[in-house]
């Protein structure tokens, strides 16, 4: 035979088809147990952006900022130091159509994914916390003023009350006044002014009391609101759920890869076989 035709090749392949299939299945069964391929893990975490109270606008990190920070060289240096030798997992931030941000971590080591994810988020939170701290100081200043106003209002409350001493003093003055104007014949005329005064006084006193109480209540509410904003109004960027080992899954090698490798092994057998037969046919 001095010519190697497609017919020869197909015949050789046909004759060794069973062996080829056996090689394929053997490789598919053996390869996953050999651990020749290093496992690669990945984790996808949904990022919850930082939030602020609507009354206090704050420049918190958004997708562009986070992307910029994560791609900076200094951030990589920080991660190298922060992960304490467990290695830095590769990571990438993406944003889907509805604006959700995802961080995807990949590494051959689960621990490095957890460490990288934690360190990364700590650093991002630092950025948000710095912005939040400035706003907290601003609110604390407002709170100091409000607390002082409340204190003044509370302390001024007693000044409005008519004490017994005030009445005695008033009665005494009234007597002196009566004596001084005895020549007035008309009784009603004589006491009318005083009754009106009392009536006016009572009316004003009531209004003042109501207003004061309202002011105090408003001030207390305002302080309570601000204190609530201080504790609950600002949240830095965070993961929606904390990073745990259960979030990490193995993505490489998977069964498809072993399928491909087994296929390569089977075809390699055929290639070697054909080349051998080819050579033999010309000898």
């Amino acid at each position, binding site marked *: 035979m001095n*010519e*190697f*035709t*497609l*017919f*020869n*090749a*197909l015949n050789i392949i046909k004759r060794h088809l069973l062996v080829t299939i056996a090689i394929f299945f053997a490789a598919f069964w053996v390869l996953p147990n050999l651990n020749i391929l290093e496992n690669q893990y990945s984790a996808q975490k949904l990022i919850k952006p930082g939030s602020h109270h609507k009354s206090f606008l704050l420049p918190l990190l958004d997708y562009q900022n986070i992307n910029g920070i994560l791609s900076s060289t200094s951030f990589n240096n920080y991660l190298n130091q922060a992960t304490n030798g467990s290695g830095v997992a590769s990571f*990438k931030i993406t944003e889907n159509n509805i604006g959700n941000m995802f961080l995807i971590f990949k590494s051959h080591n689960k621990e490095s994914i957890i460490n990288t994810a934690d360190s990364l988020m700590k650093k991002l939170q630092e950025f948000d916390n710095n912005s939040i701290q400035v706003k907290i100081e601003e609110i604390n200043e407002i709170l100091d003023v409000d607390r002082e106003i409340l204190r003044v209002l509370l302390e001024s409350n007693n000044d409005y009350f008519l004490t017994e001493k005030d009445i005695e003093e008033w009665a005494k003055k009234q007597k002196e006044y009566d004596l001084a104007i005895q020549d007035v014949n008309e009784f009603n005329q004589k006491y009318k002014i005083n009754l009106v005064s009392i009536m006016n006084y009572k009316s004003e006193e009531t209004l003042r009391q109501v207003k004061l109480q309202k002011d105090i209540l408003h001030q207390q509410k305002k302080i309570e609101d601000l204190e609530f904003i201080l504790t609950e109004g600002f949240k830095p960027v965070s993961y929606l759920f904390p990073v745990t080992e259960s979030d990490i899954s193995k993505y490489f090698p998977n069964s*498809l*890869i072993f*399928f*491909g*490798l087994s*296929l*390569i092994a089977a*075809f*390699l057998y*055929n*290639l070697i076989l*054909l*080349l051998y037969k*080819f*050579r033999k046919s010309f000898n």
Partner: protein
Amino acid sequence: MNSIARYLLGYLVIHILLISIVQAFFCQDLKILELTLIFGAFGIAFFNSKKITLEKSDIIIAFLFVFLNIYYTFIELKGLIFFKMTYVILLSMLLSKVILPFISSNEYLKKINLIYLILLVGLVIEYLYIAIFGNKFLVDLFMCNGEMTGVRGYIELYNITREILPYHIQGLNSLMMAQQGGQTASQLAVIIFIWYLFKFQNNKDRINLYLALLAVLMLFLSPTIASFFLLFISIGIIYLLYLKTILNEPIKSFLNLYVSIFIACFIIYLLVKILTVKHTSLDFVYEKYILGSVAGFTKFNLKEILLGVSYERELELFKLGEISYVTQLIKFGFVGVGVFYLSIFYYIIRVFSNKNVQAIVPNIFIIGVFILGNAHYPVMFTLGVIELFVLHLAYIIYAGSNVKKNKF
């Protein structure tokens, strides 16, 4: 087998000339026909397997492509991204086995000649039609939203001649449609020019010279920068080939040298002018198109250099895809690109061992121009054009094979 070979070649001619038009007319992606064609050719080979002679290189190259496809599909999980390159090589290999041994080279080359003639006539008619009636009818007839269907129909292309000529005619699409913008028609014009110039050199029939000049005229009427580069490079190589024939003649005068220097300087000046028509300076062109395309390579690891990067990483590292070689290197790495181009290179080198075959130089030249065209958009990988490239490569594979050698 002879009639099957003829029918298959006839089908390929019709396929090359009509596939883009049919695709654009029905606005339906017909890439699946590539798969049909390769299976069809394999089917013919299979049923005539006793007549199909294999060579060691065929077996090795075919298996290399199979391995790479398995790797990219199952291990890298990138899908059938290596299919186009596999298609080119395997179909060329199959056609060199099922068509060329059963028909004469003359008959085969005549069919290629017919394709180029129809393409050239198509370009002329298209230009005249647009000049007289405008392109509205063509745009309406072959309207297809490329982003939605993956098919590019007839497109109103910018024509740089509007800056020079007193009238404006949109850029030519050609029978292959504007699958790669204006590059398709202009690159085909360069290739038609080369084909007919060599044909003229071979048979001294002046009609071929006129057809070659007509092709150049069509290129000048609807030019692109990349195609101008291709034309200048082609003329340069043709001139070098000519120099080879007069190398032993004594130098009588240096006049030609001065003229050549003047022409070279003028061409360089013209190229700089063409490059800076759209952009402010060459610095800008270099920074935007060259640096922008290659800067991402600095972040590759060894595996990525060898076998390419994932789609996500490509998006992350590269903003531009203006240089097709670079895009291929990014996707397939040095191994993928190397296997493809080195296979072609191997077949070209091999063909030189057989001196008794006609039209080797124009076929190799055209393969080279198609490959050089990848410096910008990959025209040679578009539907219709890819089969045209395959016809040339199949010829080269056959011409260098032992089957052909044994015929002499």
